[in-house]
């Protein structure tokens, strides 16, 4: 098996900062998301605002693109706070960090904090924390 080219999430220390990532929350992405979760509410497109969990999932996905996840990683908790909403079509900058890390019985518990800030905005439009549980010290 080839060695992972990226750091394992469970090897990252508390306080680790991920490099900022800028991306666009495109209408196509939002439509794919709405189709996948089978949410037919028209309010998102009428108001031009992404579903909060769509924005959170996109941010979390970008963050987890930066690390290797053990295959048995489990999502155990989620927090989201919307601060104005994430406009569909906006370029947003994602920042994230390992807010907490603990190890128990061979399992690592990691809390990843992330923020999504639209271009030109004075602060984040959405913040979140994902807590995951994964075997500590294992390759994928």
């Amino acid at each position, binding site marked *: 098996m080839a060695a992972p080219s990226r750091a394992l999430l469970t090897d990252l220390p508390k306080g680790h900062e991920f490099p900022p990532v800028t991306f666009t929350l495109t209408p196509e992405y939002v439509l794919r998301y709405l189709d996948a979760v089978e949410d037919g509410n028209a309010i998102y497109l009428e108001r031009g605002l992404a579903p909060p969990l769509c924005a959170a999932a996109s941010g979390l996905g970008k963050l987890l693109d930066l690390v290797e996840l053990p295959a048995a990683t489990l999502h155990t908790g*989620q927090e989201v706070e*919307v601060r104005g909403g994430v406009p569909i079509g906006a370029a947003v900058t994602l920042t994230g960090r390992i807010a907490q890390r603990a190890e128990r019985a061979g399992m690592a518990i990691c809390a990843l904090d992330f923020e999504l800030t639209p271009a030109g905005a004075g602060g984040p439009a959405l913040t979140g924390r994902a807590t995951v549980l994964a075997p500590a010290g294992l390759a994928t």
Partner: protein
Amino acid sequence: MSVAPVVKQLSPEQVGRYAAASGDHNPIHVDEEFARATPFGGTIAHGMLVLAAISELMAETCGEAWLTGGRLRVRFRAPCRTTDTITASAKPQVDRDGMCVYAVEVRNQAGELLISGTVEAPAGA
């Protein structure tokens, strides 16, 4: 305010669509052979896919207030099978600091608790 529950019949096909949309291709969600060898004994749905039923419920109940000022804090209590029928429900609590507060949960067809927590949205929006 009473809140009508959201009921969803999941399927492996839908979980596959969510994996494609989100980019989360963890084999525990999409690889039946891999998942059979885990303690779960089969594939499970993404937590964020199951949680989306709560967000849908809150968008229906609170409208734009949910999209611009919602807060959510939940724990994933048990795995959700990719063929489960899930019911997301919300019980209004006492409003706090200008926010409508709801205790939320998602259960499967057997009544097993999959997700629990609280959500808030600005009142009077």
